[in-house]
C-alpha cells in the first residue's frame, strides 16, 4: 500500500525541493571543478584534493534546506509517516548532490596528469563529504525540532558553512584534512568514519516522528 503512495508523493516533493540552493549547490562546485580543465592546468594531487574538498562544502549546501517544510502544520495531518516523507525529501536533494560531487571528482581527476591520478583517493574524500552532509542533516533535524518541523535550514544553513570553517581553522586541521596518503591520512579516515557514524545515529533518532499528545493542528480564530 505504502509503495504506490510513496511514488505518488514524489512529484509533489520534487516540486518542493529548494531550487535556489540546489542551483547554487550544483553550479558553483561544477565551476570550481571545471576551472583547472578550462585552464589546461595539470593539478597536483594535493591541489585536486583541496578543490574537491571545497566542492564538497558547496555540494552539501543545498542539503541544509532539504527538510524545510513551511507547511508543516498542514502536512502533519497527512496519512503518511513524517519519517518517510523526510527521507524522501532528503533523497531528492542528496542524490543530485552526490551526483554533482561525483562529477566534480571526475573533472578534477581528468585535470590531473595520468600518472598522478592514483594519488587522489576518491573513496577517502567521499567519506569526508558524506560525513559533512550527515552533520548538516543532523543540524537540519535539530532545526526542525526547534521550529515545529518548518525550518531546519535556520540551523543547518549557517552550520553547514560554520562547521567546515571551524574545522579548517582548528589546530587539528592537518589531522582532519590530511594530505592524501600522508602521515595522518589513515588515522583521519577513522576520525571521519566515526563522525559519520555518530552523526548518522543521532540523525536517525531525531528524524523519528514524535508521538503527538494533542491534536496535531490547533486552529485559532
Amino acid at each position, binding site marked *: 500500500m505504502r509503495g504506490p503512495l510513496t511514488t505518488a508523493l514524489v512529484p509533489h516533493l520534487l516540486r518542493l525541493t529548494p531550487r*535556489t*540552493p540546489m542551483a547554487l549547490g550544483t553550479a558553483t562546485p561544477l565551476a570550481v571543478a571545471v576551472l583547472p580543465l578550462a585552464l589546461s592546468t595539470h593539478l597536483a594531487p594535493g591541489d585536486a584534493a583541496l578543490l574537491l574538498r571545497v566542492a564538497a562544502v558547496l555540494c552539501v*549546501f543545498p542539503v541544509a534546506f532539504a527538510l524545510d517544510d513551511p507547511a508543516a502544520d498542514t502536512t502533519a495531518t497527512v496519512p503518511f509517516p513524517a519519517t518517510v516523507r523526510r527521507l524522501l525529501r532528503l533523497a531528492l536533494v542528496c542524490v543530485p548532490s552526490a551526483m554533482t560531487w561525483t562529477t566534480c571528482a571526475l573533472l578534477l581527476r581528468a585535470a590531473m596528469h595520468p600518472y598522478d591520478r592514483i594519488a587522489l583517493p576518491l573513496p577517502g574524500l567521499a567519506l569526508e563529504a558524506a560525513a559533512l552532509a550527515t552533520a548538516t542533516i543532523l543540524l537540519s533535524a535539530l532545526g526542525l525540532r526547534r521550529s515545529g518541523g518548518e525550518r531546519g*535550514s535556520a540551523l543547518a544553513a*549557517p552550520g*553547514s*558553512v*560554520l562547521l567546515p570553517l571551524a574545522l579548517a*581553522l*582548528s589546530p587539528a586541521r592537518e589531522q582532519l584534512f590530511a594530505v592524501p596518503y600522508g602521515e595522518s591520512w589513515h588515522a583521519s579516515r577513522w576520525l571521519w568514519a566515526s563522525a559519520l557514524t555518530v552523526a548518522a545515529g543521532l540523525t536517525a533518532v531525531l528524524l523519528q516522528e514524535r508521538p503527538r499528545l494533542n491534536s496535531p493542528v490547533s486552529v485559532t480564530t
Partner: protein
Amino acid sequence: MSARAMARVESARALRHPAFLVAVLLYAALWAYEAWSEGWSGQYPVLQDEDRYTQVTLLLPAVGALIGTNLAATRMHRHGAQPLCEVLALPLWRRTLAHLAAAVPPALVAAVLTGARILYAATAPTAVGSPSPVELVTGPVVVLLAGCAGVALARFTPSATAGPFAVLFLGALVLSSALGARGMKWVGPVGVESEFAAPLPAGLMHRPALTHLAYLAAVTGVLVLLALLRSGARPLPARAALVLLVATAVVTGAVQYRPLPDDLAARRADAERHPGDRQRCRVAGQVTFCAFPEFLNRAEDWRRVTDGILGRVPAAERTGPYAVRQRLFLAGGGEGVSATPPLQAWAQDDTRHRTPGAVTVGTGWGTDDIGGGEMLSFAVRFADRVVSGPGREGAPTGSMLCRARAVTVLWLAAQATPETADALRSLDRRSFGGVTLTTLESSQALSVSDPEVRVVLDLLDRPTAEVGDRLKSSWPALTDDRTSTERAARLLGVSAPANAEQASEGTLCAAR
C-alpha cells in the same frame, strides 16, 4: 530618536544572535584547544606575525555577524510581517541604518578577542618582536564589513540562502589568497602569507597593511551606502558618496599590489649579506649569540640547545669560544631547495664582527614541522661545529655526515632538548633513506644516512646520562668518520642495523 532606540535593540539582539554566539564559542573553543594542546612551552610567537594570525581566526565571528545581521534584516519578511511595515512611521532607510549600527557591537567583541589573543601571545615567555596596531585593527574591521554585508544583502534579496552563500563566497576569497592565486591576495578580507616563509624583522616586512585597511573601510562604506540606497535614502548625496567610495576602493585595492620598494629591497639585501651591521650580541658562557634586536630574546631558546650539546662534550674538547648568528636567506622557502646562500659574504661579515665561524640560526623556531625542522637543523649545525672545529661555514654547499661522526653529531643535536628529540622523530617519519637538514631552506645542507639515524633513534630511547658517559669515554673514536657505524653503536651501547655499511655505498661517505 526611534532609529536610535531601534539601533540599541538590534545591537543587543546582534550580540545575542545564535549564529554570532556559536561563532564566538567556536572561536573560544579552538583557542582553548590550541592553548591546551600546545601550551606555552611549545609556542615561540613572533609578534609581528601573530598580529595578522589574529585576522584569520576572526573569520568565525565575521561569519556569525554576517549571518546574524542578514537574518535580523530579513526578520519581517521571514515572519510574513513585511506588509505591516508600511504603516510604520520610521522610514525603511532609517530602519536599515539601525540594522547597520547593529554591526558595530560584534566588531567591538572582535576587537576585545584580538586584544586578548595578542596579549596572550605577548605574555608568553618565549615571545619576540612587536605587533602592528594596523594589523590588529584589520580583524575587527573585517567583522564590521561582514555585518554590513549581511544587511546590504538583505536589502537586495530576502532569501535565506543568501547569507550562508555569501559566507561561502567570503571563504573562497580567503582560500584564493591562501593558495596564492594570481592577483587574489588582497582582494578578500585577509591577505594570507606563505606559511613556509620565515619571519622577518618588522622593518624588513612588505605588507600593505594600512592600504588594505583603507580598502576594507572603503568596501564597508560601499556596502553601507548600497544598503541605504536600496532602502530609499536620499539618492543624490548617497550616490555621490557611493561613487567616491567605489573609486577609493578601486584605487586602494590596486595600490595594495605595488611592488617591493627599491629602498626596502636594498635594506633586505644588506640585512641578508651583512646581518652583523644590524645586530646586537649577548654572551652566555662560551657562546656569543648575535641576533636582530627584536629577536635577541630568542637567544635564551638557542642557549638551551647549545648548553644541551656542550654539556655532553668532554671539557677538553670544547674548543670555544663559539658564536651563533641569526641570518636571513630570502631566496629560501617552500619553492624547492635550490638557491645557494651567500657563504662568502657571511664569513666576511663574521670576521668583521669578531665572530669567526659563527653557526647560522634562522628567524623561525617552533615545535611544528617547519619550526621543529629549523630547531633541529640549528642543533645539528652547532653540534657539527663543536665536533669538527671551526671553519665549516665557508665549506662547499651540501655535505654528508658519515659513520661514527654522523651518529655523534646527530645524537648530540637530538638529545639537546626534548623538543629537538621530537623534531628528529617527526622528521624521520616524513623522510626516506635518512634525513637532510638544510640551512635556511637553501642548497647548503647536512645529511645523515638511514643506518646512522636508526642508531640515534635507538640511543634516544636509552638513558641520556649513560649514553653521554659512553660518548665522553670514547670521544676520539666516535668523532672520527673512519670509525664504522657498527663500532660506534657498540661503543654507545646499542646495536647497528645489519646493512649499515652497505647503506653508505654509492653515497659521498663511500669515497671517504
